[in-house]
């Protein structure tokens, strides 16, 4: 029994069957990669997990509870944090404030009318946010405008924001898309560190095979909306079916 159990999930957009019959089990504390060619349904699957889309059929269970029909913020409060393809941060706010918001969400829940106390007087939240910034090596940038940072730093901040919520499952949607080699390697190192040091499960959607094989200890290959194989990285590498899905039949 994995922490995330996807059973017979299907999703249709008009005439397009985006997801056929997806079964997926993500084991606790593993790094599970979902790969597949363009249009394989990776992003649709991810959106079904976080509440952005509701699948037509099947069930999605997180830690024994169904996530279907819940709003994204409710699913997040259950312990699933999501990192986006292009970093989604609060660009108009300072880096420290960016880090404090998830800490407030963790402490106070989805809504709290705390309108009369000073933000800076919330010592527990402030300390936690400062601590997290230090862990992410961003303490010197704390008063910077978040939008003014480099792409790599934004990604780092976003991951830090997700981690400060102490999620049990971290979902990453092509975290290194559009990044330079150096930034990609930094992100790989960061994710490795996170999975080694924390009690956390990581599910990652990725195009870049370098990233996938450096991180994952379990891989699911999606093609045309259905899982082709699920196996360990060593076996995926040499699997003819996978080569076929990626490179076409003639390859």
């Amino acid at each position, binding site marked *: 029994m994995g922490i995330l159990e996807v059973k017979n999930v299907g999703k249709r957009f008009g005439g397009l069957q985006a997801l056929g019959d997806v079964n997926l089990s993500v084991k606790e504390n593993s790094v599970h990669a979902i790969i597949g060619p363009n249009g394989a349904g990776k992003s649709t699957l991810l959106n079904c997990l976080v509440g952005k889309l509701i699948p037509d059929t099947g069930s999605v269970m997180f830690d024994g509870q169904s996530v279907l029909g819940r709003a994204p913020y409710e699913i997040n409060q259950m312990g699933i944090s999501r990192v986006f393809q292009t970093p989604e941060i609060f660009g108009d*706010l300072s880096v420290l404030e960016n880090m404090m918001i998830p800490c407030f969400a963790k402490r106070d829940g989805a809504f709290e009318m705390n309108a009369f106390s000073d933000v800076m007087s919330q010592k527990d939240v402030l300390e936690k946010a400062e601590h997290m910034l230090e862990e992410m090596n961003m303490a010197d940038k704390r008063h910077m405008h978040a939008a003014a940072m480099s792409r790599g730093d934004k990604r780092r901040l976003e991951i830090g924001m997700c981690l400060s919520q102490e999620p049990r499952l971290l979902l990453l949607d092509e975290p290194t898309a559009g990044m330079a080699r150096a930034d990609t390697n930094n992100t790989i190192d960061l994710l490795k560190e996170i999975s080694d040091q924390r009690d956390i499960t990581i599910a990652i959607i990725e195009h870049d095979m370098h990233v996938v094989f450096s991180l994952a200890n379990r891989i699911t290959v999606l093609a045309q909306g259905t899982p082709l194989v699920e196996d360990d990285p060593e076996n995926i590498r040499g699997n003819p079916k996978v080569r076929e899905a990626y490179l076409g039949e003639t390859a």
Partner: protein
Amino acid sequence: MFKLEKTDLSLLVIVAVLTMFAPFILNPFPADSAMAQFNAGYPDLMQRFVIFGVFAIGFNILFGLTGYLSFGHAAFLGVGSYAAVWMFKLLSMNVVPAIILSVIVAGLFSLVIGFVSLRRSGIYFSILTLAFAQMMFALAYSVLTPITGGETGLQLALDDPRILGVSQTAGGNIPVPSIFGLEMRSSAELALGAWSFTFNVGYYFCALIMLVSFYVAIRIFRSPFGMMLRAVKSNQQRMNYTGLNSKPYTLAAFVISGMYAGLAGGLMASMDPLAGAERMQWTASGEVVLMTILGGVGTLIGPVLGAGFIKYFENIFSKINSTILHEWFAFLPDGLEDLLVNVLYPFIGKGWHLTLGILFMLVVIYLPGGLVEGGQRVNGWFRNRGAKKSTTKTTPAE
């Protein structure tokens, strides 16, 4: 003090000093000089300054923090006015219960309208609020005449019950709004040489309420709740995927700003106990948007400045007529005088909207941060000059 940071506290103190000494500051010219018409220190106008200040401060909590642009906030102001006048008719002429009721009623209306309008964001939200406000205006103007007084507006009458007060005074007049016996319209005059200053009870009452509103707004801006509202403006997607429900946050901001509008409406009715539907019209809603943008969206002091600026123009510029212009340019040769007067004429009197429009365009194009940004630039410019001077002074050391 007041649990505020140093900069916020000094801002509050500055605003407090300015409002308390406004009768002096706004009357810089001797009473019978030619410039006396630029004096704004008369009670009626000063009251309007602070009342619209309250309105704009509240509007800024919604628009400045969450970025949701409401085009229907005048509706809450109008509702607040009606509620206050009804309180004068039914209960007593004391302004305190009237203002409390106007805030509550405006809060309830904004809860309902906000709940529906906030289902959409961006331009659709603006259109929804506009539609609601126009609907309320139309209803108040026609169908709801028994409650709102229709075209003539809601007025006090000699046969109103006023359970806790008197229906009419001993002299057979309608009583006037007061606070525990102290009449809102009573004033004290102070003549100093050629100058004369008026201290009005109503003004100081409104000014104190504005200071409290300003203080509350500062606290909201600096609170975790205020931070969440800025997060709504910045990135709602990230907010929802960070376990935060943005809907109650925006609704709370909407209701708070609606209550501020109701407070402003109640104060208006307390200064002059009648309420008309035109207060709810879309032009009135547009005015508070202009005030906020002109002063500086999302800044603390901006909306207050914007409100003062627009009300000053409305009341002072609109009073200049061609006779006054001719007087000013009487020293010029006749032909030139007529030419100059004709050139300036469209911009004054009833043409003050044109002047305001041009100023508004200039501010939006060159100072997107409003008057506050203008102030900051001037300040920075002076500091730079000061810094340069001090360096040039210190270099020739011999």
